[in-house]
């Protein structure tokens, strides 16, 4: 289960960072940064809520 969660979260992270990059290229820098922020939260959150408990 843990491996599945790590892989799924990493895939979503990469997907979201890719989307943030495409927003950056479209000159929507604030949008890109907000999406990147979400991606980082999604990457970090499982550590605090699932793996630490």
């Amino acid at each position, binding site marked *: *289960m843990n491996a599945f969660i790590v892989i*799924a*979260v990493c895939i*979503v992270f990469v*997907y*979201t960072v890719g*989307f943030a990059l495409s*927003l950056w290229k479209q000159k*929507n820098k*604030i*949008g890109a940064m*907000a*999406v990147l922020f*979400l*991606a980082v*939260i*999604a990457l970090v*959150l*499982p550590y*605090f*809520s*699932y793996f630490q*408990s």
Partner: protein
Amino acid sequence: MKQNEGKIGIRDYMAIILLTLGSKVSDDTPTLLYKTAKNSAWISMLGIALLSLIPILFLLKVFSVHRNKNLHEINLHLFGKVMGNLISMGVLLLGFSSFVLDTSVYVDIIGSMYFTRTPTLALYILMLVVCGYGAKRGIESIGSAAWLTLFYLKATLFLALIFAFTKGNLKFIFPLWGPGTLEIAKTTGSKLSIFADFYFLGIIAPLVSSFKEFRKGTLWAFAIVVVEITAALIIFVILFDFTSIEVISYPFHETILYLSIGFLSNVESMFLPFWLVAAFIRFSFYLYLVVTLFGGIFKIKEFEYLVPVFIVIVLFLGIMPKNLTYTLPYLREMILGILSPLFFILPILMWGMAKLRGDFKREAEQSH
């Protein structure tokens, strides 16, 4: 997968409201009301409905002069760029928190009452993946799915309530004023945000085919939902009495587990599938609202790409609270407590700003 960009008609719009707000009967909302208003929770619900009508009517008035704008665009127009964005972000944060808690409550219901041996995380993942798919398909698909399910869900709910009514004792609703008018008034004030969804509906206002249909759909759905929730609150009391209902976390599910229709003893298997589908539609819609508002604030047109990241965040925030039976009601009450005054004040403030800016006058001049 492409999102449907079209609009929804009054039928789908009403179906969405009836499913999202109507299903509050089946979560822990009744328990929150019974806790303070005891057996007169239904009276406090009527009070909540009467009070909620004020912000809803103000909202509709504001939307009547900004027919092609959604909630965020109206916030920007009325409060300016900085304040408007701040208000929208606050609304997003509260709406998102409420969404996370609601999903957590639903997973707790499914895990504690039906699938007791399935891990919570597996239930959560399954539910959010289905809802993510629904949200990614867009408002048209959510509306169609809501309309398709509506009849079956309401029919089974009606059946359950009728059977529960026949097994109950009508005397349990007395004394009519329960703990007293002061407690009822307090409950009314603090739980006003049960209908805060109507404020969030402003996010999809321009997606309803016309303002006339938006207004008509909102008011009719509001009236139906109020009748539905009030009737359910009365029936739960006459079935369980208030002394036991205060300690029941999910009265609707206890009711359908308690009921037996003739030789059918496990009638919950009749209600559960429809309730689950309704839950999926409800959370698909909430997820859609969250990503749409986020997309609006940060000017992201292809906001459907945000669905997976939001699913991950909701999932890991949702599994965070431990000891769900105690923490969830506490957190829910906290969110309701914060949302209630905002839900009442914000629409009035919006109306006041529109009046100050002369939006109503301009609209009247244009229509002449």
